[in-house]
Every structure is written in structure tokens, then in C-alpha cells.
């Protein structure tokens, strides 16, 4: 962006390969923790909503508000309490995954055909066996669709956590903005997009391995 400066300075990338690798690891770590914790919390809340349908409204309403609040605002609100820390970043990231995950888990379980549930009950499955052996396995495809969206969204959001001292690839974007340095910008932005695409592809493979019945022919 400075006149005469090339768009991409390969020598900079080469000399910063180690740091780039480290930031990629940080980016993945932030994402994996957020999605994993999000899945656990969403799972518990979903089971609650499935058991007590009256709770589904309040749960989606609350997580909907969390989802609507801008990420930077949420991080900012947390700083006085949890500081410029990994914890602040994760609280924000996790709360973004909840709505998507809960919606998909509940929709997946509710979408199990009634006759399948009826047959299971008729053969003597207990309610718990129906949930774990029939409903959740059959909901897996829809649940995974939610995990994919949550993961992609999280990978994008992780860049914003650069503003509170975390950030993964977001660090390079911020660096690029502050120094008007296009190479860092491109490394950060492209890196984040590539990570999202790769993560999505990996999740598709995992899902296919876990749900062989959906693509058997």
C-alpha cells in the first residue's frame, strides 16, 4: 500500500513462516475449544428442551440474543471481568455457536420419523434407549450440518479476538491494518478462509464416516 511496495512480499512470508505456523495453531486451538465446549453446552440445553418443550422458546430466545450481539461488543463487555484473556475470547466464541447448534440438534431429533420412534417403542426400547440408539444417531446428519456452520462461523470470528490479544490469523490482519502492510493482510485473511474451507471439508469426511447409511447405495 505504500507506493512501490509489492502486494505480496514473499520474503516476509518466508522469514515469518514459523510465526505463521504458530498463529495457525492458535487459530485452530481457539476454534476447537469453542466448538467443543459449544457442542457440550448446546447438547445439554437441547436435551433439556426436548424433555421439557416449554423451555425451547426461552432457550432459543436467550441464545438468539447472544447470537445477535456483535462479537466485538460481547468481547468488550467481558473485558472488565475476564480481561484480555483466552477466557474472554472463548466465552464470546462459545456463545455464538449455541443458537445454531441447539436449533440443529433439536430439529434433528424432532425430525426422526414418527414410525421409527413408534417401532422402537413397540419393540420395547426405553425412552433413554430411543434417545441414544435411535434419535441421536438419526439426527447426526442434521447435527453435523450445525457443527459445520458453527465451525465456519467461529473460524471467522476468531480473527476478531485479535482485538483482545488473541486472534490466530486475525493478528496478521490487524497488523496489516495498523501498518498498512498488504502482505500481512493477505496472509491473515486468506489463511482464515483456507482454514474454514479445510475444516469444513474435514467435517464432511467425519460425518460421512459416522453416518454410512446416508450415502449407501
Amino acid at each position, binding site marked *: 500500500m505504500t507506493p512501490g511496495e509489492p502486494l505480496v512480499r514473499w520474503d516476509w512470508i518466508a522469514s515469518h513462516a514459523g510465526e505463521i505456523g504458530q498463529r495457525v495453531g492458535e487459530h485452530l486451538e481457539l476454534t476447537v475449544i469453542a466448538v467443543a465446549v459449544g457442542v457440550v453446552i448446546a447438547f445439554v440445553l437441547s436435551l433439556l428442551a426436548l424433555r421439557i418443550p416449554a423451555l425451547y422458546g426461552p432457550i432459543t430466545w436467550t441464545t438468539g440474543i447472544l447470537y445477535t450481539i456483535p462479537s466485538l461488543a460481547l468481547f468488550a463487555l467481558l473485558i472488565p471481568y475476564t480481561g484480555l484473556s483466552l477466557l474472554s475470547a472463548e466465552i464470546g466464541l462459545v456463545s455464538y455457536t449455541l443458537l445454531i447448534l441447539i436449533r440443529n440438534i433439536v430439529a434433528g431429533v424432532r425430525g426422526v420419523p414418527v*414410525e421409527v420412534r413408534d417401532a422402537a417403542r413397540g419393540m420395547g426400547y426405553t425412552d433413554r434407549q430411543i434417545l441414544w440408539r435411535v434419535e441421536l444417531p438419526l439426527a447426526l446428519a442434521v447435527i453435523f450440518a450445525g457443527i459445520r456452520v458453527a465451525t465456519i462461523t467461529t473460524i471467522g470470528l476468531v480473527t476478531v479476538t485479535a482485538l483482545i490479544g488473541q486472534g490466530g490469523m486475525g493478528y496478521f490482519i490487524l497488523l496489516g491494518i495498523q501498518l498498512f502492510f498488504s502482505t500481512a493482510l493477505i496472509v491473515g485473511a486468506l489463511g482464515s478462509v483456507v482454514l474454514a474451507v479445510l475444516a469444513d471439508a474435514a467435517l464432511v469426511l467425519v460425518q460421512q464416516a459416522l453416518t454410512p*447409511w446416508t450415502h*449407501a447405495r
Partner: protein
Amino acid sequence: MAERAGATVELREVTKRYGDTVAVDRLSFTVPAGRICVLVGPSGCGKTTSLRMVNRLIEPSSGEILIDGQNVLADDPTQLRRRIGYVIQQTGLFPHQTVAENIATVPRLLGWPKERIQARVDELMKLIGLDPERMRRRYPAQLSGGERQRVGVARAMAAEPPLMLMDEPFAAVDPIVRERLQNEFLRLQRAQGITVIFVTHDIDEAIKLGDRVAVMRLGHLVQYAPPAELLAHPADDFVAQFVGSDRGLKRLSLLTVGGVELAPVDRAKLDGAPVLPSSMSLRDALAVMLSSEAQEAPVMDGDRYLGALSLQQIGRILRVDEPA
């Protein structure tokens, strides 16, 4: 032939109310061990509700259901259901499990050892005409409609239940496949000696499969009788209309030529008339005779001549049972 006896099932004054509506009203009947009882009636008359009260998918409002003298309400519902086969129209096969896993459902719930489960799965797959080697690892989505229904029946039979409940199991397949499934089912039921309660809205299916037919209307049992009896003596106008104006013909299809009193006519006089094997149904015999314009035809049991059947006599049989 039967390896084990089926259960005797008795319903006593069984009633199911939903608020003000009475879905099933004081239903009472007994199914003898090893027999097929068909519940038949127009849609909404309470067949499914009645059936599902037997394995307590629906709890009766009042009344008793006894299986081999044991009140079903005395038992834990899930334990009870594991001892009762259950087949439904939409099959309810588990899409995420293979054919073998589906069939093994109840034996696994009951904790059978692996080898016994595998042997039973193979045995059942052969019985329903699916090659275990080829089909064992397929998913339900990889089967035809008829194959899926067969697997549904095999799954219900897997743990050797003394009683099976079947709710319109063949209603969703095309007529040709349905006929084949019905025949296979009859063969299987006779071989295993299971008691069956079978729901259908199709009177022809009821007559074909039932040892006893229970005709229901608006939650009531209107008539409970063997098919021939039902056709010969409908209890009222509703039953008469439900079994159809061709019920005489339907009844003819339940009777065989050999079971009729035949006229001792000289065999030589019947030359040129079509020969009727004694196992032929009267209905088919009528069709054969009408199309050949013969008034009388010889009935043969193999090479043995039994006597002559006349159109007049078929007419008499048709008329005998007209309601007064």
C-alpha cells in the same frame, strides 16, 4: 410342525376414551393360541387403538387384556413389548442400521449371546427369502418396498414372540407384491405357530388371512366370526355392506370343490366338460364352468373320480346363506 405354542389373548370390556370421544368401546374377544385374528373396519373405527393397547403403546381407560391369562397391566411395559412382535405399515425400520442389525433389535435388548443372534438372523433372512450373504449388510434405503416389509416381519419375529401385532403391514405395497407377502406370511405364521392380531381396512385381506375376523365400527365390535361364517351370516346391514354385495362369490373362494357334496353322475357322460381338481376353489370352478358352457363337470382327486359338480349346485350354495 409348530416349534412353540402361540399365546392366547383375551380382551375383556376394553375401552379407550379421549376426552369425550370413545375410540374403543367395551371391546371383548378371545384369540385362540396360534391363530390369526384380523381386526377390520372403516378408517377411524378404532382398530389401531385396540391393537396398541395390547402392547400398551396406548393405555386402556378401562377393561383388561390377558395374554395367557396374565394381565398386561401387571407387567413393565418395555419388558412386555419385548415379548410381543410389532409390525407397522411404514415398517419403522431403523434407517441407520443394517438389515441384520434391524432384525437383531429385540434379541439384543434381551441380551442373547452373539452367536445365537447371528444364527437367528440368518435363519429368519432365509425364511423371508433374503439371501443373508448378499443382504445382511444393506441399509433399509437399499431395499425394495416388499423387501422392507419382509424385514419388518422378520424383525418382529426375531425373539420368538408368542404374539405378533401387525397394523396394516401390507397396505403400502402394490397388489402383486402384497399377494406374495400375504402368502409368505401365512406360511411363516403356520410354521412358527405364533398368535397374530392383524389390522387391516381391506375386507379381502381379512377374509384371506383371518382364522377369525373382528368387524369394528365406531369403536364397537359388530361381529366376531370365522371368515366363512361372516360371509354367510353377516350380523347386520353394516357388515353385509362392508363385506360387499359379492360376498357370495367371496365365500365361494373359501370353499373347495372337494368339500361339496357331489352328484354320483356317470363319468362317461361328462366327456368334454372341464376337469376340476378337488383342491380348486368353488369360485374358480364357477369361472371355469361358465366359460366352457358346461352345466356339469367332473371333480378329480388325482386320478380318482369323486363325482360331478353342477352350476345349479353352486347356485344353491350361494343362495343357502342369504340373510332372511
